[in-house]
C-alpha cells in the first residue's frame, strides 16, 4: 500500500469512527429521553383539559428530545474545544518550552525538523522540548500549519542525529497524515461518552423504581407505556448495557485507530528518511529507557512515539496488548521496520 492509498484508508476510517461515535451519542441521548424525559415521538395524540379549561389536542409526549440534544452538544463542544485549545493544553500540561538555537543539541533538533519539513514538502512545525529525562516525543496541532513537534530532553541527549531524524520523521508523518486531528477529536469524544455514560448512570439510581410502577403523574397524563412491560424492560436493560459499555467500546475503538496510525507513521516516516534502520535503533533506545515519562500524562499517551506510561502492556503480545494498548508492541514495530529495510536493500541490489 502506498502513502496515498493509506491516506485514503485513513480518511475512510475517520468517517467510520465518527459514525460509530455519533451512533453512541444518539443511542445514549435518545434512550435517556425515552426512559426519563418521556420523549415518545411515535405516540398518537390525545385530547385533554388544558389550563384554560377547554378540550385541546395535548401533546402526549414531551416534544423536545432534550437529552439527545444535550448529548450531541456535549460531544460537539468537547470536540470543538479540543480542536481549538488542544495544542495549548497539551503543551501546558507537559511543561514544554520552545527549542532554542543557542543549545547545541536543540539547534540540531531544529535543523532536523526543518529537514523533515523539506522532505515532506510541508511548512516546518514548531519545535518544543519537554523537560523530562525519559525518552519520548509527540506531535500535536490540528493541521500542518499550526502543528508542533515536541521531544523530551532525555531523547535529545541519548539519540544521535540519524535516530533523532527518524523520530522527527515519525512525528512529521503523523502531521502529514492528519493523525493528530483525528486522535484529538477521538480522545475528546471518548471523554464525552464517558461523561455522558456516567451522567446517565447516576441519574438512574433515584428513579429506578418508577420503571415498573410508573410514577403517578406519568400514568395520568400518558399511560401509554404500561402495556409492553416485559419488552420495555428488555429494551431498558439493553440500553443500560449500552450505556455501561459505551465508554469501553469507544476506548477500544480509539486505541485500535491509535495503533494503526503508529504503524503507518513508522512506515511513512521511514519513507521520508529512506532509512528504516535508524528508526529501529531509536525505538530500541526508547524501549530500553523503561522509566515512565512523568511530564506526559495519560491524556497525551496516544500522541507519543512510545507509551509514556512505560507500562508492561506494551511488551506483551497477547489479546490484552492487542486491545488496550495505545501503541503496538515494540517487537512488532521493529520487526515491520526491519522487513522494510531488508526489502529496500534487496531492491537496491537487484
Amino acid at each position, binding site marked *: 500500500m502506498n502513502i496515498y492509498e493509506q491516506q485514503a484508508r485513513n480518511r475512510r476510517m475517520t468517517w467510520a469512527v465518527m459514525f460509530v461515535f455519533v451512533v453512541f451519542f444518539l443511542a445514549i441521548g435518545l434512550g435517556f429521553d425515552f426512559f426519563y424525559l418521556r420523549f415518545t415521538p411515535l405516540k398518537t395524540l390525545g385530547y385533554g383539559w388544558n389550563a384554560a379549561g377547554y378540550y385541546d389536542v395535548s401533546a402526549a409526549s414531551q416534544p423536545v428530545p432534550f437529552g439527545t440534544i444535550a448529548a450531541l452538544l456535549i460531544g460537539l463542544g468537547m470536540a470543538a474545544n479540543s480542536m481549538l485549545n488542544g495544542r495549548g493544553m497539551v503543551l501546558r500540561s507537559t511543561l514544554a518550552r520552545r527549542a532554542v538555537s543557542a543549545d*547545541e543539541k536543540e*539547534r*540540531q533538533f531544529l*535543523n*532536523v525538523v*526543518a*529537514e*523533515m519539513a*523539506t*522532505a*515532506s*514538502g510541508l511548512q516546518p512545525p514548531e519545535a518544543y522540548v519537554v523537560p523530562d529525562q525519559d525518552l519520548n516525543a509527540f506531535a500535536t496541532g490540528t493541521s500542518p500549519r499550526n502543528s508542533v513537534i515536541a521531544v523530551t530532553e532525555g531523547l535529545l541527549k541519548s539519540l*544521535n*542525529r*540519524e535516530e533523532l*531524524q527518524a523520530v522527527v520523521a515519525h512525528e512529521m508523518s503523523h502531521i502529514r497524515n492528519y493523525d493528530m486531528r483525528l486522535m484529538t477529536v477521538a480522545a475528546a469524544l471518548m471523554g464525552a461518552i464517558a461523561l455522558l455514560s456516567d451522567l446517565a448512570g447516576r441519574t438512574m439510581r433515584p428513579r429506578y423504581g418508577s420503571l415498573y410502577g410508573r410514577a403517578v403523574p406519568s400514568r395520568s397524563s400518558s399511560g401509554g407505556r404500561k402495556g409492553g412491560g416485559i419488552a420495555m424492560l428488555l429494551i431498558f436493560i439493553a440500553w443500560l448495557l449500552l450505556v455501561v459499555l459505551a465508554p469501553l467500546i469507544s476506548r477500544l475503538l480509539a486505541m485500535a485507530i491509535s495503533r494503526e496510525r503508529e504503524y503507518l507513521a513508522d512506515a511513512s516516516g521511514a519513507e*521520508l528518511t*529512506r*532509512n528504516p*534502520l*535508524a528508526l529501529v*535503533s531509536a525505538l530500541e533506545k526508547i524501549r530500553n529507557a523503561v522509566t515512565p515519562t512523568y511530564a506526559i500524562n495519560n491524556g497525551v499517551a496516544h500522541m507519543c512515539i512510545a507509551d509514556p506510561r512505560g507500562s508492561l502492556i506494551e511488551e506483551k503480545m497477547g489479546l490484552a496488548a492487542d486491545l488496550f494498548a495505545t501503541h503496538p508492541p515494540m517487537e512488532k514495530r521493529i520487526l515491520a521496520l526491519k522487513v522494510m529495510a531488508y526489502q529496500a*536493500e534487496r531492491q*537496491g*541490489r537487484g
Partner: protein
Amino acid sequence: MKILAVVLLAVVVWVVMIFNKLVNLRNQVANAFKQIDVQLKRRYDLIPNLVNSVKGEMKFETATLEKVIQARAAAMSAGSAGNLNELMAKEGMLTQALGKLIALTENYPNLKASESVKALMEELTHTENQIGFSRQFYNDLVTKFNTEQQVFPNNVFAAMMGFSAAALFELPQDSKEREVPKVELAV
C-alpha cells in the same frame, strides 16, 4: 443532437480538469526546484567559512581543500549558466569533495573539539541533508507530474496543451552518492 452536445460538453470539462491538474503539478515542480536552489546557495555561502576555520589545522590536506573550493566555483558558474545537466554534474562533484573533507576532519581531534567547527559541521550536515531531502521531494513530484502526463487518456492531450516531461534531479553516474549508503548506528 442533444446527446452529442452533452457528450461534447463532458469531454470539454474533462479536458479542462486535466489541464488544471497538470498546471498545478507543473507549478509545484517549479517551486520544489526553487527550494533545491535555495539550499544550494546556502551551501555556497557556507563553504568559505568552513574552509577558513579548518585551514589552520588541516595543513596537510591542502589538496582536499583546494578541490572543495574549485568544485564550489565550478558549481556556481554552472548554476549561473543555467544548464541543468552541467549543474547536476558539478554539484555532484562538490558533494563528493565535501564528503571527503568531512571524513578527513574526523582525524583531527582538535577540530572535533572546537566549538565553532562543531557548529559549522552541524550546519554543513544540515545543509547537505536539506539538499538531499529537497531533491528527493522534487524527484517525487516530477515523477508524479510525468506519470500524470503519460497515463492513457491524458497523454492524448498533454502534449497538445504544451506540457512536457520534467527532468529528474539525478546525480552523475560516477558519483559516490549512488552507492548504497552505510548506516552508522553506533553513537
